[in-house]
């Protein structure tokens, strides 16, 4: 992937954990494609990837779309998220497609889809988010633990 808005942003720990990778940016379509690796640590009692971990991937898919489509000026702070789980997900590669349906000054409406390598739709989500200027982001990952 050539240079993108993400080059300016330090890679957050959750992107590392989910093995977030940028695959494609489609600005006219207000869309990004990213990929993740569903790890053994994400497996639930059912033997498949826990639904909440898929929600974490969808959150990072939709957030990526909002960030890129705002040309790196804003990042989303999720207000709410509605996720539907359509098929069980296995350990391995998962693709996320995020779309910035509408970006306002303060609120973004986002949607996301997750598919496995065979193209099976695993989960889909919609989300509304408060759009925050990236200037307020910490330059390094200061841990808000105190």
């Amino acid at each position: 992937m050539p240079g993108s808005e993400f080059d300016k942003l330090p890679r957050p720990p959750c992107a590392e954990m989910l093995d977030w990778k940028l695959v494609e940016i489609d600005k006219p379509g207000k869309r990004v494609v990213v990929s993740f690796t569903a790890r053994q640590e994400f497996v639930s009692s059912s033997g498949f990837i826990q639904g909440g971990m898929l929600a974490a991937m969808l959150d990072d898919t939709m957030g990526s779309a909002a960030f890129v489509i705002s040309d790196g000026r804003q990042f989303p702070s999720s207000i709410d998220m509605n996720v539907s789980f359509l098929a069980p997900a296995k350990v391995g590669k998962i693709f996320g497609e995020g779309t910035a349906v509408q970006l306002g000054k303060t609120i973004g409406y986002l949607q996301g889809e997750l598919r496995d390598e065979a193209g099976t739709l695993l989960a889909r989500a919609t989300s509304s988010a408060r759009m925050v200027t990236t200037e307020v982001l910490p330059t390094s990952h200061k841990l808000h633990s105190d």
Partner: protein
Amino acid sequence: MESAVTETIFDAFPKPPCAELLGWRLIAIDREKQQIRIGFTARPEFLNPAGYVQGGLLAAMLDDVMGPAALVMSEGRLFTSTLDMTVSFLAPARLGLLIGEGTVIQLGKTIAYLQGELRDESGTLIARATSTARMVATDRLAAG
């Protein structure tokens, strides 16, 4: 009444990897209220670019309070396969202990209606969720 946690239905199941990752631990079971309380540990790996716990990982914790609530209230006979989940994010979450409360609103033969809340140690409501789930017999769980 909230009962002290000694032997529970969870002893009969191996702890899944995602529960390990989230630092899942049972705190209390309240059968009258159809409610359980679970502790989690938000780890540095869960942080987003803003330095707070990523919302999706809070959703993962909420999923892991609502599912176990259904398992306990079905006396360990049924586990949940989540169909959908709606999460509202109310306050940013920092590293450390988070406490989840999962409630079974209605448990049918095939569908369960669940709700969950996540609070920090000071009692601030961080996120809440509702979920519908398909109920699957636990004897169909993969062994090991």
